[in-house]
């Protein structure tokens, strides 16, 4: 079983390396230090966005409001600094709390009402987005402090590695530890696998659901803050385009929407694949409309491949059982 799991992300890694090399062979500029920098910047917040969705997929639910939370946090973060003159660390802290509160609301209402998270997060999507638009009247906040701007532009020494990617990498690592090495993480997967059996072995379902949503809110908030650092302004439409990629990466990474099976590393590689492809489409001057078709086809292919592998595993198991 362990080897099969390894194969899970090993295949994706091969896809990443091969596609990277193939693009570089045709367009050497792809491996230029500036391009690698741009690539890593896009990867940095996409990684967090994907993890924010992944943890909800782990418990067999979905969170449509990831983008709306990110957007609300982005404008709160920049508004706190511009309008209320709050210092950067405090603003970060308050923004993260706002994100976690949004996540808590999602989790609490879902857990207590028993209504599907889809419909709850659809409602909160409009509530969070509505608050965002109501506060900003769709006007961006421009006056972002220099420290934040500098953070968004900084590189690690002379390398092309953006400072922005450091936090996402740390978070990805922590998420891996959380999902694979902690009791709460394992409870989440167990809950996602089967709600009934999880409750039978004494896992509190509302605790699991609320925790997952709070973490999702925290991650969405982090992504929102990173995007503000990157764009150097707080615009209300941050988060509008997150929905599709947030599902694409975990699903390409082999996550099963019914819950119980997610892989942090595979999700991260899924993000890389999405980012590399989006960039390749620009580099090769491919019709911008293709980007959408491509993401859709990728998702479908990924679920088909996963299905196929499940069948094979099933078949293997049967052979072993019969022996």
């Amino acid at each position: 079983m362990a080897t099969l799991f390894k194969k899970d992300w090993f295949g994706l890694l091969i896809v990443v390396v091969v596609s990277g090399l193939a693009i570089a062979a045709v367009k050497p500029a792809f491996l230029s230090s500036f391009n690698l920098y741009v690539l890593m910047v896009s990867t940095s917040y996409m990684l967090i966005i994907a993890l924010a969705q992944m943890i909800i997929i782990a418990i067999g639910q979905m969170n449509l409001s990831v983008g709306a939370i990110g957007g609300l946090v982005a404008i709160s973060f920049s508004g706190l600094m511009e309008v209320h003159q709050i210092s950067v660390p405090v603003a970060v802290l308050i923004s993260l709390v706002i994100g976690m509160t949004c996540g808590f609301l999602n989790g609490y209402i879902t857990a207590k009402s028993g209504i599907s998270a889809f419909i709850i997060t659809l409602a909160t999507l409009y509530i969070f987005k509505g608050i965002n638009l109501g506060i900003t009247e769709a006007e961006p906040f421009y006056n972002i402090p220099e420290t934040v701007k500098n953070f968004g532009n900084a590189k690690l020494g002379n390398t092309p590695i953006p400072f922005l990617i450091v936090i996402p990498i740390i978070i990805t690592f922590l998420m891996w530890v959380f999902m694979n090495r902690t009791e709460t993480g394992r409870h989440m997967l167990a809950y996602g696998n089967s709600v009934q059996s999880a409750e039978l072995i004494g896992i509190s379902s509302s605790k699991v659901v609320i925790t997952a949503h709070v973490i999702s809110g925290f991650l969405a908030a982090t992504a929102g803050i990173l995007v503000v650092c990157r764009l150097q302004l707080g615009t209300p439409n941050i988060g509008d385009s997150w929905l599709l990629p947030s599902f694409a990466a975990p699903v390409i990474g082999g996550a099963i929407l019914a819950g119980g099976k997610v892989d942090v590393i595979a999700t991260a590689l899924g993000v890389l694949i999405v980012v590399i492809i989006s960039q390749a489409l620009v580099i090769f001057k491919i019709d911008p409309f293709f980007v959408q078709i491509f993401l859709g086809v990728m998702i479908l292919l990924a679920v088909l491949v996963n299905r196929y592998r499940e069948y094979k595993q099933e078949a293997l198991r049967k052979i072993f059982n019969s022996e």
Partner: protein
Amino acid sequence: MKSLFSIVASAAVVLSGGAFAGSSDTKVALVPGGPHPYFAAWEKAGQDAVKDFGLGKADYKVPAEWDLSQQNELIESLVGKGYNAVLVFPGDAVGTNKILGELDDAGIPTAALAGCVEQPTKAKMCFGTDTGHSAYLGTKQLIDAMGGKGKIAHFTGFLVDPNTTLRIKAVEKAVEESGGDVEIIQVIADIDAYEPADEKINAFMAAQGAEVDGIVTTAWVPAVVAAQALTNMGDKRIKMVGIDHDEVVLEAIKAGFVHGTMLQNPYGQGYIGSYAMDKIRGGCTFKANAPWKSTAQTDQFIDSGTVFVDVTDVDNYVDAMRGISLEILKTFEGDFLDC
């Protein structure tokens, strides 16, 4: 910007000679296509028009999203609420005509503002930047700055915006006229939101930054993002001509990363547009021989003006704009209206 508003406003009071002291029952709704910083000046313009021309109301009402149906729903509810004149940035160059026709049937005059609807239309006029011409002039400026040769990239806005196609064609035209030494190597459209703009413009810079000699941007957000990208890269080799007056763009001009910008006149659009609506409700009609301009979409176009500023006059851009607005207002009634 504030000074621009007050100067135009006080000038208008002088011009009108207090003739508008009585208040009319005209209630103008200024409806953009969706939330966008470009239109923000309309709000102040409407308020000033109420003050200076004695309108009943002139309110800035924004659809929460760029969506024709939402815009229609908003306009319908505004009419239900008693607004009796509508200035609208068309959500679609033809689709918006339907509702304008229905408003006309209900006795409500309308005009297209900042972007035109295609004829035949019931809109009384189209009052906006001649976007094609502005893009053309901007590209000319860029080609001059590049010394008449090199490779250009063009970044522009929503494909659903009726202006976008005009801009793409105008840039092509300016390039053709340069006599073959200038080439457009890429047009990136549909990036009038910050996240996709940032992603695509940076990916472009990374892949083709070394080849490109000039950038022309013809929409607000791409101008901001491209100016920021050049500033971050510290690149002064690539020449860029932007559009509009976002702080980021103006700062980049002062710092030398951006060659210049094509200013538009949203304040004047809202201010003079509200004034015109009131006049029409008061019984004025457009003259048969009014000095209309023609565009690809309409032959009832009035140019709200556009002006190029670079590092030499960027500090005085407010004056540049004021000049245009005053000029239009001074001759508007005499040139266009039969009262």
